[in-house]
């Protein structure tokens, strides 16, 4: 069945959800199996509308739950098709079991994860609890800070994930509401250019190859399971980083938009820096520039690729910084923040002596204001001057009640 192409302006006004849905349309996906959940619903809805309006040739399967959505994706990917879906929060929690199946079966699937807090208390707004919950699930994780990046990273994710040396599913994170529902100018690619960049899907070990019958999802016990998991980790650590760099470079050649695993802003001569993810990166950049006018040499590091974690790039980015704050938008549940832990891990066996402190912020969509960041940069400058962390290592930003500080 023929499908129609869509005429796009060079710059369209799209929110993050629509940008993701448009990229999915342009990738000419074979199967989308999905179940809507706030705030990712408009991705699924938008894609379904493209299908109804004949802009999509592939199958759109409405299922009875997120568990079924990811199961449908696993089946379709094993059968040998290009596959994607979207979800948030509780939906991801219900999918979690099948996420491990997908990565263990080495099936390339693209999942748009519109970040939202996890209940209880029930909350539909953005934080990174869902992103962190599946951090060990063996999926590649990209983080978009804006609708433009949500669009670009979708196209990039298909390329990386489906590469025959990779075959690892990929999540594209974007902040619930602040990115997903905020319309901004998005530079588009024409349908042909976008599809050519993603490329035709090349099946591998597909079940519809009747001349080479294959059983997917076999059982292994203590005699084989460890080797499979070791290989998955090895490929994440040794193959995926290079592939991501390669696809980022190709994307820059095509569009002029340059992505890095670690996005540095004013870091070259900085004394103090904030490391964070999502829309907070853009706020922190704005404040960092303002701090420079006040004589504080501030920089910002945004984590573009959360898995595989860019340990070496992070260490390189902050090696000359005196005081660094790591911001985690997730309740730490009796530990240091995840990002704080990863960054400590990337510095531990170096000779670097950086005053490293961690902050929990923004849970359930609580705003991270510019005033918060001004205070934070001032606190970092004090740490930098003292050559050590003057506060406790873990603090909370923007929560009501007596000050919280631990460790």
């Amino acid at each position, binding site marked *: 069945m023929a499908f129609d192409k869509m005429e796009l302006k060079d710059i369209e006004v799209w929110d993050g959800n629509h940008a993701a849905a448009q990229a999915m349309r342009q990738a000419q996906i074979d199967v989308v199996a999905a179940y809507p959940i706030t705030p990712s619903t408009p991705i699924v809805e938008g894609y379904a509308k493209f299908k109804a309006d004949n802009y999509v040739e592939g199958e759109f399967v409405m299922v009875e739950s997120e568990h079924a959505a990811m199961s449908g994706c696993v089946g379709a990917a094993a059968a040998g098709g290009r596959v994607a879906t979207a979800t948030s929060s509780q939906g991801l929690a219900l999918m979690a079991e099948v996420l491990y199946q997908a990565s263990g079966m*080495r099936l390339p699937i693209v999942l748009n994860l519109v970040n939202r807090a996890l209940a209880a208390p029930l909350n539909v707004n953005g934080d990174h609890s869902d992103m962190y919950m599946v951090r060990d699930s063996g999926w590649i994780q990209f983080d978009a800070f804006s609708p433009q990046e949500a669009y670009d990273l979708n196209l990039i994710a298909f390329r990386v994930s489906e590469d025959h040396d990779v075959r690892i599913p990929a999540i594209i994170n974007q902040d619930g509401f602040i990115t997903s529902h905020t319309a901004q100018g998005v530079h588009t690619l024409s349908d042909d250019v976008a599809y050519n960049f993603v490329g035709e899907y090349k099946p591998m070990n597909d079940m519809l190859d009747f*001349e080479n019958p*294959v*059983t*997917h*999802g076999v059982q292994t016990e203590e005699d084989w399971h*460890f*080797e499979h998991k070791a*290989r998955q980790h090895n490929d994440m650590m040794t193959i995926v980083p290079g592939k991501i760099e390669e696809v980022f470079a190709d994307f820059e050649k095509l569009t002029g938009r340059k992505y890095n695993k670690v996005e540095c802003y004013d870091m070259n001569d900085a004394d103090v820096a904030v490391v964070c993810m999502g829309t907070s990166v853009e706020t922190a950049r704005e404040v960092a520039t303002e701090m420079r006018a006040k004589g504080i040499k501030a920089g910002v590091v945004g984590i573009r690729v959360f898995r595989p974690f860019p340990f070496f790039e992070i260490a390189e980015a902050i090696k000359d910084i005196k005081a660094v704050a790591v911001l985690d938008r997730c309740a730490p549940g009796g530990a240091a923040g995840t990002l704080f832990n990863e960054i400590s891990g990337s510095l531990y066996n170096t000779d670097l002596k950086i005053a490293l402190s961690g902050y929990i912020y923004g849970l359930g969509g609580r705003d991270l204001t510019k005033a918060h960041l001004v205070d934070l940069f001032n606190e970092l400058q004090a740490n930098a001057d003292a050559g050590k962390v003057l506060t406790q290592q873990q603090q909370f930003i923007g929560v009501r009640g007596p000050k919280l500080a631990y460790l």
Partner: protein
Amino acid sequence: MAKQGWDEFEIGSLLRSFDGKIDKCPAHTPQRDRSYSENNSHVASVADWRLIKPVYNKDYCIDCQFCWVYCPDVSIISRDKKMIGIDMDHCKGCGICVEVCPTNPKSLLMFPEQADEETELASWPTKDEEEE
């Protein structure tokens, strides 16, 4: 299956059913001529999962193929629409074949796993006149 290192097998939790390429429709190749791989369950015996077993008595069989159609484990061996016997490496002893066998007396009956087939065939029940 040889115990290979993590870098020595295909990615994904998958197993190949056959060695090399096969004809698009393997049903056209008789089972004995298929190049089953060492990982195929065809070559693995699961006979020890069974507690009771079916015994086949060809004297009463009318080759209706009911048992072949109904066996959930594809363990009835049939060639040219003739019932040949039971694949005792894969039969799980569920007894469905016995249930569906329409002859009187039945051409398939269940016995304890350790029962001797010759003895049971020699004392096979006769026609049950009262059967509805």
